[in-house]
C-alpha cells in the first residue's frame, strides 16, 4: 500500500515542474489540493460527451447528466456513510455549506439569549457566520478554549455547552494546529443539552475515514477542492429530519414545487437546497476523486500521512529557533504543521522557501481569533497530502535551514 502511495505521484502532472529553477515541493495542501489525471480526465470526458443541464431535460444528454450528478451524490453518501443520499446537498464549498446552515437552521432556530458554542480554533468560515447570526439575533456566542499543548479543551467544552445552547459548531480538524477534535463526544454533549452539532470537515474528509452516522453530527460541511476534486463544488450533509423542515437558502430554478405570483412551495430535499443550475462537472469530478481516494483506502491515507508526520515533525522540532504550534507529539498531530522561525516574519520565510521550490503558506490562515489567542501575528504553515513523500519533507527541512542561514537567525 505504501508502494501504491509511492506510485501515485505520477498521477499529478502539476508536481512535475520546476519553480524558481527548483523542483516543486507542494506543501500548501490545507489551502487546496492538486488534482490527479483521473479527475481532470473525468471532467474532460463529461464535457466532451454528456454535458447538459440536470433535472430539466427529457433528452438523452439531460438524462445522462442528471444520472451522473445523482450518482456523484450517492458516492458522497457512501464515502461519509450518510444514511440516505438525499441528506447530501451539493454546494460551492465548505464556506457555502456553513453559511447555508447558519442562514437557514440558524436563522429559524436562534432567538435572543440562546447560546451558540464554537471554538477559538475555528476557521473564519465556521466563525463569522455564527458570530453574525448571534449579533443579528442578540444570541450569545461562546468560545471553547485550548489546552496548554493546543488541543481542544474538552473540560471547557463541557462547561460552555449548557441547556441554553442551541448550536455547537466545531472544526473536525484544525487548519492551523494540526489537531483533530473528538466530534463524536462533542455531539454527545451537545445532544444531552438538546443542541444540534455542526462539524466543519474541510480538513478532515480529505485525510481520514469519516462516518457521519457514527459521529452522530446533525450537519457536516466540506469542500471538494481540498480532496483532489475540482474547485467550485462542496458538500453539506444534514440529517433528513432537519433538512425537511428547514427553509430554503437560495431561490430559483429547480428548487421549487409550485410558483405562483405571490407565493411558492418548495420541492423535496436535497433539491430544495440546490437552486439554479448546478456544477455538474464539479460533482462528477468529486465522484471521481472519491473513487480515487477509496481505491487507496482512507485508513491507508491516514496512516501514510501519520508516517510522514512522524518523520518530519521531530526534524522540525530539532531546528534551533523554530517553534511548532499545536501538539509536539506526532501521534496527535496531523499533516498540517504551523511554525515560526525566530522573529523572522513568516512572509519572509515563505518567500525564501519559494525560492527553493517549496510552496508553503504564511499568514493568519483565516483564523485571526486563534492568532490573537496564541499571541501571534502570523505563522508559516506546511501541509502534507498523499502525493508528498519523505523527500519532500527533507526538502522542507533543508530549505528552512537555508533560510536560517540567509537571514542569519
Amino acid at each position: 500500500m505504501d508502494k501504491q502511495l509511492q506510485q501515485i505521484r505520477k498521477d499529478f502532472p502539476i508536481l512535475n515542474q520546476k519553480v524558481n529553477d527548483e523542483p516543486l515541493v507542494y506543501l500548501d495542501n490545507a489551502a487546496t489540493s492538486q488534482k490527479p489525471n483521473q479527475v481532470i480526465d473525468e471532467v474532460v470526458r463529461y464535457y466532451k460527451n454528456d454535458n447538459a443541464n440536470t433535472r430539466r431535460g427529457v433528452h438523452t444528454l439531460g438524462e445522462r447528466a442528471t444520472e451522473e450528478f445523482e450518482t456523484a451524490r450517492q458516492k458522497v453518501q457512501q464515502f461519509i456513510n450518510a444514511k440516505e443520499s438525499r441528506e447530501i446537498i451539493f454546494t460551492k464549498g465548505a464556506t457555502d455549506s456553513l453559511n447555508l446552515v447558519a442562514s437557514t437552521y440558524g436563522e429559524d432556530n436562534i432567538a435572543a439569549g440562546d447560546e451558540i458554542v464554537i471554538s477559538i480554533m475555528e476557521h473564519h468560515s465556521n466563525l463569522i457566520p455564527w458570530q453574525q447570526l448571534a449579533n443579528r439575533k442578540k444570541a450569545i456566542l461562546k468560545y471553547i478554549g485550548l489546552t496548554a499543548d493546543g488541543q481542544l479543551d474538552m473540560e471547557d467544552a463541557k462547561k460552555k455547552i449548557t441547556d441554553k445552547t442551541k448550536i455547537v459548531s466545531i472544526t473536525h480538524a484544525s487548519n492551523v494546529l494540526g489537531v483533530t477534535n473528538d466530534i463524536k463526544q462533542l455531539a454527545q454533549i451537545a445532544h444531552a443539552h438538546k443542541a444540534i452539532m455542526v462539524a466543519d470537515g474541510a480538513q478532515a474528509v480529505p485525510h481520514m475515514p469519516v462516518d457521519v452516522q457514527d459521529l452522530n453530527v446533525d450537519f457536516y460541511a466540506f469542500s471538494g477542492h481540498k480532496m483532489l476534486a475540482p474547485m467550485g463544488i462542496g458538500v453539506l450533509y444534514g440529517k433528513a429530519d432537519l433538512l425537511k423542515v428547514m427553509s430554503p437558502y437560495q431561490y430559483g430554478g429547480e428548487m421549487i414545487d409550485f410558483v405562483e405570483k405571490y407565493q411558492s412551495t418548495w420541492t423535496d430535499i436535497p433539491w430544495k437546497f440546490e437552486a439554479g443550475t448546478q456544477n455538474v462537472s464539479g460533482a462528477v469530478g468529486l465522484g471521481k476523486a472519491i473513487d480515487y481516494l477509496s481505491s487507496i483506502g482512507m485508513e491507508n491515507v491516514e496512516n501514510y500521512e501519520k508516517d510522514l508526520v512522524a518523520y518530519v515533525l521531530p526534524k522540525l522540532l530539532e531546528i534551533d529557533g523554530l517553534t511548532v504550534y499545536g501538539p509536539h507529539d506526532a501521534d496527535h498531530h496531523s499533516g498540517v504543521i504551523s511554525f515560526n522561525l525566530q522573529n523572522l516574519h513568516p512572509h519572509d520565510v515563505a518567500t525564501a522557501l519559494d525560492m527553493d521550490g517549496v510552496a508553503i503558506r504564511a499568514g493568519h490562515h483565516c483564523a485571526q481569533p486563534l492568532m490573537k489567542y496564541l499571541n501571534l501575528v502570523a505563522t508559516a504553515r506546511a501541509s502534507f497530502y498523499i502525493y508528498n513523500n519523505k523527500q519532500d519533507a527533507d526538502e522542507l527541512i533543508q530549505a528552512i535551514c537555508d533560510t536560517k542561514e540567509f537571514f542569519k537567525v
Partner: protein
Amino acid sequence: MSLNGLNSLYREVILDHSEHPHHKQSLSSATNKITLKNPTCGDVINLEIKLDGDKITDIGFTGEGCTISQSSASMMTDAVLNKTTAESLEMAHIFSDMVMGKEHSQADLDKLGDAAILSSIMQFPARIKCATLCWWALRKSLGDEDDD
C-alpha cells in the same frame, strides 16, 4: 538548492533598514495619523506625520510586519522627511509605478533615495503589497486617496 535569488530582494540595505528601522517611533506632536493593515498577512502600520504648512517636518511609524514592510517604511520616512506634501505624493506615485513595473526615468528613481532599491520587488508579486503598504498610508494620511 540555493537561495541566491533571494539576494535581489533582501539586499544588504533592505536588511539593514529592517533591523534598524529609521523613524520607528511615535510622535508627540503629529498633525496627521493613520493606521493601515494588510489583512492577508496581518501587517499593521501606524503612520504619524507632523505637517508644518505644506512641509513634512517630522514623521514616525510603529507597527508590525515582515522585513519588506518594515524596511520600506523606514526608507520611505527617510525619503519624505522635510519634503512638501506635493513632493511626497509625487514620490508615492513614482514608487507605485516602479513596483508595478511601469516605465520610470532614472531621475525619478533618484528622488526615492534608498527606497528605489525596492524596484526588485517586481519579481516577487506576492510581496508588492508589503512594500506599498506604508506608501498607501502616506497617501491616505495626506488625503490623496483615489479610492481603489
